[in-house]
């Protein structure tokens, strides 16, 4: 984005105030926008928006389907690049990072939890959890140990050798959570983490996410459920590609 464009973008005082009070920011979106081209039509998935996520924050993002929540999550997770604006993550300007550096950032800084768990079907729970450590170049023995510890921390020490199809939905999501946590991420991005779970299993997963937040991990959670959103410290609303405080 050009300097002129930055100037033209009016900052949202609510969404950037956290960064102004001197607290350490982990992720800062400054006028970030994302547009897609669908045939001849240009779709504005994210309108220019500002957001400051401080270290240790627990944020929930709510909004109807198609409002841009997932696009926001992809941008925050360095899976997608903004078409305008500036995104600073852990002090790095994401736009300046190469593809290889972005992969390293995803590996070291960000943990992902998806609604449909997204585990490798042919691998055991432990091998699933080992996955990010594999790309971090961690030795095999240490991978196994850390994966075991992560599974233990989510209450699945007895399910380490089980494959996803041998586990319940709640257990699978806990494996996915263990996979996100095993690399000790600074930012945990959860996309509808309880969307496919019954209330009991969902509650268990939410407690684990809250535990992580209390332990200092920054969490941004996307949800449709106001009760789930209420567990976060702050809830943001997403509508038509724009972000506002609830």
């Amino acid at each position, binding site marked *: 984005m050009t300097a002129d464009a930055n100037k033209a973008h009016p900052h949202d005082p609510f969404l950037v105030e956290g960064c102004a009070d001197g607290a350490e920011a982990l992720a800062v979106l400054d006028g970030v926008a994302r547009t897609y081209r669908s045939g001849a039509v240009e779709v504005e998935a994210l309108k220019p928006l500002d957001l400051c996520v401080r270290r240790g924050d627990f944020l929930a993002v709510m909004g109807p389907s198609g409002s841009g929540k*997932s696009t926001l999550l992809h941008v925050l997770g360095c899976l997608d690049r903004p078409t305008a604006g500036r995104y600073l993550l852990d002090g790095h300007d994401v736009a300046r990072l190469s593809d290889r550096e972005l992969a390293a950032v995803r590996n070291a800084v960000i943990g992902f939890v998806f609604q*449909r768990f*997204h585990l490798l079907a042919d691998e055991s729970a432990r091998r699933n959890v080992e996955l990010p450590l594999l*790309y*971090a170049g961690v030795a095999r023995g240490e991978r196994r140990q850390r994966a075991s510890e992560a599974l233990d921390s989510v209450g699945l020490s007895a399910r380490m050798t089980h494959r996803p199809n041998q586990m319940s939905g709640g257990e699978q999501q806990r494996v996915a959570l263990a996979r996100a946590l095993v690399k000790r991420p600074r930012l945990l991005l959860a996309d509808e983490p309880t969307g496919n779970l019954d209330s009991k299993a969902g509650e268990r997963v939410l407690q684990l996410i809250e535990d992580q937040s209390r332990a200092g991990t920054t969490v941004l959670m996307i949800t449709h459920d106001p009760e789930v959103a209420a567990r976060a410290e702050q809830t943001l609303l997403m509508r038509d590609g724009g972000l506002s405080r609830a």
Partner: protein
Amino acid sequence: MNRRMRSVIREGLLHVTRHPLRSSLTAFTSAIAIAVTVNVISLSFGMQEDIAGDVDLFGRHTLDVGVPPALAPGVKRPSLGEAQVERTRRLLTGLDPIVVPRRQRAAPIRVDGIDEPYRLQVVAAAPAYLRTLSIPVAHGRWLRADDAPGSPELEGTCCLDEASAVRLWPQRDPAEAVGARLEMRIDGVARTMRVVGVLSDPLRYRELFETFDEGRGARTLTSSLLSFRNIYVPAATFGPGDYTGISIVLPTDEAVLEAQERLIAVWADARDLAALSRGSLIVFVRKQWMEALGTSTMQGSMVGNLVWILVVLVAAVMISTLNLITVRERYDEVALRRCEGAQRRDIALQITVEGVTTALIGGIVGLPIGYVGAHVLREIVQFPFRFELRYAAVATGVAILLGLISSVIPARHAATLQPARVLGRRLR
């Protein structure tokens, strides 16, 4: 190779083992391609190798000055007597040659127990003649200077080719021909000869040589020698008369070419094998004649090589398609791996490892299939066939190449996948 790369390779190998049906299909396609490759290589390269070996056996440093055995009607045979032999020696001064004049003519041969005599080529040669052939004596010994030429009163000595022994005594082992007696009539004189040695037949593909010869429309001097159905008698067995050829053994390739130039300068246009029909003397290097034969067989083997290359390419397309379908089924997995920190090259490496591994497994399965198939073909069409470990190595290399080629497009496709697009469509 760093730890991360090793881990990615291991992921690829594990994937192959965890999807046995998919891997088997790919491997089976590769197996067929490698089986065909082994088959054709064994046939074509094997034949080439053997012909090259035959060139050596026939005497790669040997040059011939010869009188064509078959002349056009009415064409007078050129004279090749002592004067030409002496002239040849003089021309080759300084090249360290061994000059061996040779007389050769067909003669009826009679042995005990057979009513009708066989006509065989009888070659009268000095002891040094064996050096122009570079072939071993299979049984007994070669002719010596003190061997008797044979006469109606005195039994002479002779050697014969293995094929001649089989023809004269079909029920016996060629080794048993040593010590046997035979009768021949040369220049109207009946002679009794005792066999003292049997020469091995160096040509593995005799029929191939003879087919080549027939294809040229005339029996050449070389093929006459190459028939290896001769009887060799001491030089003095024949009376005075023209030589049919002078064989010259030289120490090096360079000396052979130099000798050829010097002799051609004297016997003009004799380099051309077509000169046979014009009745002139010919000067030729056996190696060149054999190379002409090699070129002819190479054309045949090129067709074979085109077949296996085509089969490998078709297999590459098929495996590539299978791999591409597999990658499309694994969009979620690829996207997830990218989320968890996999770089594009990690994905490409894993897909390539999977492709190469399955192709290699197929190659290992295809090797024995191709080997057995070549044996079956050999039995059916009586085609020369030869299998060596290095052909297996070539086939293995082809399998790896096949895996690499067939992985290029799928690996590239997977590596360039945008995880956000996949996640946006499917993952939630």
